[in-house]
């Protein structure tokens, strides 16, 4: 499937990344999963931004998903979670574009202390809907031919992004951002590793 799930903008501070704006399209998940999936996507996005050096692009594969991340030299970061079939080059071009738009709309002094409520930048949902079809983005990608695909670092799991000694399981169980229900989901998903079985 060619699909975009979530798009978020972070500011990478000294100790942790700060979520500035996010939008997601979770219609393809079953009703009661959506809340959890949303929490996990935000959790994964934040984690990956924190583990990515400034001025670096990464694409991290996790199960059937692909997290594309770009942290700019000025610490503004964009994360796009897509299906693994969504073209990487297009995904990274979109992140560049959305970060440029964001910079034009929101002045840099608001970034370090901003929250979703204080920052007015409401184009993410429209953006997410429009670029579900990567062909829509084609004129964009042509414009930005300078994006060098070889500079995107590919990682095969989230584990590969973590620092030495860090474990995803521990991070999930320690996280305060994830609800109990989400943690239960995580455990079940790990145990069965499939979407169709019942417990």
């Amino acid at each position: 499937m060619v699909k975009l799930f979530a798009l978020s903008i972070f500011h990478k501070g000294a100790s942790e990344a700060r979520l500035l704006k996010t939008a997601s399209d979770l219609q393809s998940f079953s009703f009661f999963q959506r809340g959890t999936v949303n929490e996990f996507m935000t959790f994964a996005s934040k984690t990956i931004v924190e583990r990515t050096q400034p001025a670096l692009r990464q694409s991290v594969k996790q199960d059937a998903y692909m997290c594309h991340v770009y942290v700019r030299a000025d610490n503004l970061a964009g994360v796009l979670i897509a299906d693994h079939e969504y073209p990487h080059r297009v995904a990274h071009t979109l992140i560049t574009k959305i970060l440029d738009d964001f910079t034009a709309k929101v002045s840099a002094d608001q970034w370090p202390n901003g929250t979703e409520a204080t920052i007015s930048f409401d184009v993410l949902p429209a953006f997410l809907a429009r670029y579900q079809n990567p062909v829509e983005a084609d004129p964009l990608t042509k414009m930005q031919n300078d994006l060098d695909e070889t500079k995107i670092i590919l990682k095969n799991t989230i584990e590969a992004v973590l620092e030495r000694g860090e474990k995803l399981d521990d991070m999930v169980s320690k996280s305060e951002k994830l609800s109990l229900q989400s943690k239960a989901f995580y455990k079940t998903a790990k145990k069965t590793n499939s979407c169709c079985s019942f417990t």
Partner: protein
Amino acid sequence: MEEERNEKKVLCEKIIQDINAVFLKDQDLASFEIIPKETNCNKSPVVHVEHNLGLESWCAQHVYDHAHRTLISHRRQSSQQQLRTLQQQQQSDILAKYLNVALLINPDVTTFWHIRRQLVQKNRLSINKELQFSALVLSIKPKSNEAFAYRRWLYSFQSADAIDWPNEIGICERAADRCASNYHAWSHRQWILQSGPCLLQSELLRTEKFMRKHISDYSCYHYRQVLLGRAYELCFALPTDPGPNCPSPLASLQQLLTNYGLRGADRAEDMLDLLLPGMDRSAVSSQRLRSFLYCCNVAASDMRLCEEQKAMYGQRDCFELHRRAALKFIVEQCVRLEAGGLLAAHPAATEDVHRHLRQLDFETHPFLAAVRREESALGAKHRRWCNLHLSFGYPAD
């Protein structure tokens, strides 16, 4: 021990009762799922939000065991006793309550579906409610063959006019969207195509959209090939005059001909001249020729779509295979129509098509000669495929 078992039984009964209450209250349930939750938080595990029903996972196994045991003990009775249960509305309602829960948690038990069929035959369950229930099962298991088969069985009691076919297509599409390579959903859709009214035009539009999104799901590509074959078989074509501002209805075919180096075919007659040079056109109906051009145009647009997708997403088996299938369709239909009534009467007689192609003098057929020339540039593997399936007779590498 005994007490504990009893307590569990009471709890399961209570949960099944709660689920049944939701069924009675909400006529438009859209989905069911099991919510992972490891512990009992001392409140009902049945969650009902905006027409979605959820059951917490900690109790699913116990509830299923209980429902299963009850249903199996019903089946263990003598057939007279079973019949008595089925004949009483109250008893049947109780049975249906257990069936609902058991099948939602585990849709793979044919025996349970069979009991439902018995209840329908005894008029204890309404067909509309049953259609709704099987759709609910598909929301948790989109690949449930039993649920699709049950729907087909239910429709056998209804006249084709009374069936909401677009809704049925929608159910197939949702199931295919949730689970890739969903054989059961796509073959159910083929059944709709065979039994329903003419849905060809909307299906051609829908499948193209689906293919653009699910680029590696070959089930959809295959369905589209069936669809195209069916359109040809039924002599389907859109009304000819599309209005002055529309692009030419045969633009894709024209483009294909140009790509093969055959320029200047602007009108339908020119294209027919190229595709069917040696044919007496008065021998077949004009509708046949119109449909021929229409279907070839769809195939040509599919070939182009596959090439565009390949440029966008890189090499995929699906693009390659579907492009070949479309090419094969065009070549075979050209040969069939030209060879006349004998071949056209047996759409399955591929052997005859091959014999004809082997004997064909390509010099006399500019289109096939051009296809043969251009396709040879696509590599040794493709040439082998052409030799095998189109009898192009390229020399062995």
